[in-house]
């Protein structure tokens, strides 16, 4: 029988890893390299690109306050979305993790249900909910609370609502995994030592669920900061996020070099965040959430 000790066959781990590494190389590393090279090219007036090593795009992206302001707005939207997801998501995650309901798997299935519908359709559904002739306005007028429809759509809050709708399951899943893994005896021990229910939650459950909260927050933040569809569908004229700048540069202005530089800025920023998270918390918590 062949030995399983890596020392006897040092190439075995690499052989086993090679399909994954090849996929990452072909689908991630090489495309990013292409984008990096493109970011140093220049666009001509006709839309054609001039190859070379020019720092113009980077100088523009890094010094122009327009890009900085949109980036800060993007980070604000991502932060607000993450906080709301954490606050709103904790309760259902706690409930699912602690319930004695025998069909717990069914509750988890309900969490996954939104993923069966296209993200764009889910986003557009808010137009029928918050629109002038949407469900909320019709209901408010029907009960007599308002005489005229309220203008609720097409602002940064509806962008946040759309993002929370999209990202909440990610937060709940991460929190659930973390809460489910907490030894219930610890809570019982805290209670037997005189803690109230709230104290036991604050001193035991909450601290032990922080890794899940951090993992969910990282996912929500990164996905929210990179979003492009939600502000397009639910945002007003001035609610563009950073990914919309990339779209404008590449699609509208046909300026692929500038678009490449912009997308790399976002990639570096969010990649840095992931690296920091990995350094201080570790990626294992996220891996647990996905099974």
């Amino acid at each position, binding site marked *: 029988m062949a030995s399983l000790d890596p020392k006897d066959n040092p190439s075995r781990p690499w052989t086993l890893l090679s399909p994954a590494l090849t996929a990452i190389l072909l689908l991630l590393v090489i495309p990013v390299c292409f984008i990096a090279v493109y970011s140093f090219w220049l666009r001509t007036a006709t839309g054609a690109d001039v190859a070379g090593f020019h720092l113009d795009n980077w100088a523009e992206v890094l010094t122009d306050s327009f890009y900085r302001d*949109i980036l800060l707005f993007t980070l604000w939207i991502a932060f607000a979305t993450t906080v709301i997801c954490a606050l709103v998501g904790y309760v259902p995650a706690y409930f699912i993790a602690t319930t004695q309901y025998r069909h717990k798997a069914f509750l988890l299935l309900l969490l996954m249900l939104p993923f069966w519908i296209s993200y764009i359709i889910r986003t557009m559904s808010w*137009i029928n909910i918050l629109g002038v002739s949407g469900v909320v306005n019709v209901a408010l007028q029907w009960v007599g609370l308002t005489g005229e429809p309220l203008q609720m759509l097409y602002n940064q809050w509806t962008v946040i609502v759309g993002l929370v709708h999209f990202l909440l399951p990610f937060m709940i899943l991460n929190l659930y995994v973390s809460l489910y893994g907490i030894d219930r005896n610890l809570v019982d021990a805290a209670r037997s030592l005189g803690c109230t229910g709230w104290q036991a939650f604050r001193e035991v459950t909450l601290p032990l669920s922080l890794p899940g909260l951090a993992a969910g927050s990282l996912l929500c933040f990164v996905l929210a900061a990179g979003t492009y569809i939600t502000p397009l569908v639910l945002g007003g*004229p*001035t609610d563009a996020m950073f990914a919309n700048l990339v779209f*404008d540069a590449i*699609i509208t*202005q046909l300026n692929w070099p500038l678009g490449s530089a912009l997308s790399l800025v976002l990639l570096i920023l969010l990649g840095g965040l992931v690296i920091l998270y990995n350094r201080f918390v570790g990626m294992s918590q996220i891996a647990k959430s996905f099974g």
Partner: protein
Amino acid sequence: MDDTKRYERLLDRYRNGDLDRRTFLGLIGAAGVAAGVTGGPFSALKRQALAATPDQVRFDGWGGVVSEAFRKHAFEPYTAKTGIDVVDGTFGGADEYLARVKASQPGEFNIAHLSGVFDYVRYDGLDLSTSLNEDNIPNLANVITALQDVLRSVTGGSLSAVPYDYGTTSLAYNRKYISDEEMREKGARILIDPAYEGKIGGWGEWKTRVWYGALQTGQNPNGIEDMDAVWDAIRQHRDLALKYWGSGAELMSLLAEEEIYVTEGWSGRVKALQDQGHDIGYYDPPGGLGWQECLFVIKGSPMAACEELLNFMLEPEVAIAVAEGQNYPPSLDPTKVALSDQVKALPAFDPSGTLEGLNFFDPPYWNSKEAEWSKTFGRVQKGY
């Protein structure tokens, strides 16, 4: 017939000294794999990779009712008659489509339903134009001369596209809230009227915004003298607008749901709303914007097959059926071809066949401003 093959172009470049031998052989090998001649997994993709082969032509259009009209009235009868399949694709916008074409291999995309002369110039500027053999398109003789001339002036007398339809981007308004008299009185300036703050819409496209900004500041859109005033008008519109719309479907939804009361809009889409029973008015203000759409043959396409399809699409009964389906008048000259009453009732229809009453983008002027104005609009649009 100009069935330009990928390897023939590579050979040309190699012979011209543009490629070294190693690169040439490498690209030939890659082309072979993509074409499936070497077998393996890529051979399954052969059909898609060779959309330019004479037994099929790829057509890309705007989708929705326009594509349905093309499919029903043009492609299916054309395939039945000629045996040539039409691979029917769609795009959401001209910019997005050009980005896809730019990223593609020659021959991957063949005919596109492009909007306006502006795109014709852009494609020509990117060396994507062809030269149609007009002998293969006898129905071109029925097409309004003014629509052809503006294209010929770009490509040195020849054509890389046939004009197919035209329309206007004028003011669409909800009659429940805005009367016809008020619209006539205010014209384009109604889009910057604070009385309708939060109920104004607009197409988030830089050319249209600049055109209407020029009208709102009393300037000739094809010769703007005070650009700062135009940007200020665009900012004013932005601050009053509820939303920039990005597609015909979104335009129709915003108007139909009464999210907005007034916007500029595409004549065909507004007609569709009116046909659905919505009380939407449509007004061409002085200097209102006209445009034409053409069927553009992209470089590297199987020319004979494309020309045959273009000629088929210009057959009066086909062009009229498509026009009735998409609500835009066909490019056929009403003085040469008998058009249906339904077509004659379409908004923007010009019975004279001269189109002298419409205002179009001046291609040299607008294309020379594209890089600067599209970028500036991208900033103004986002609050700057």
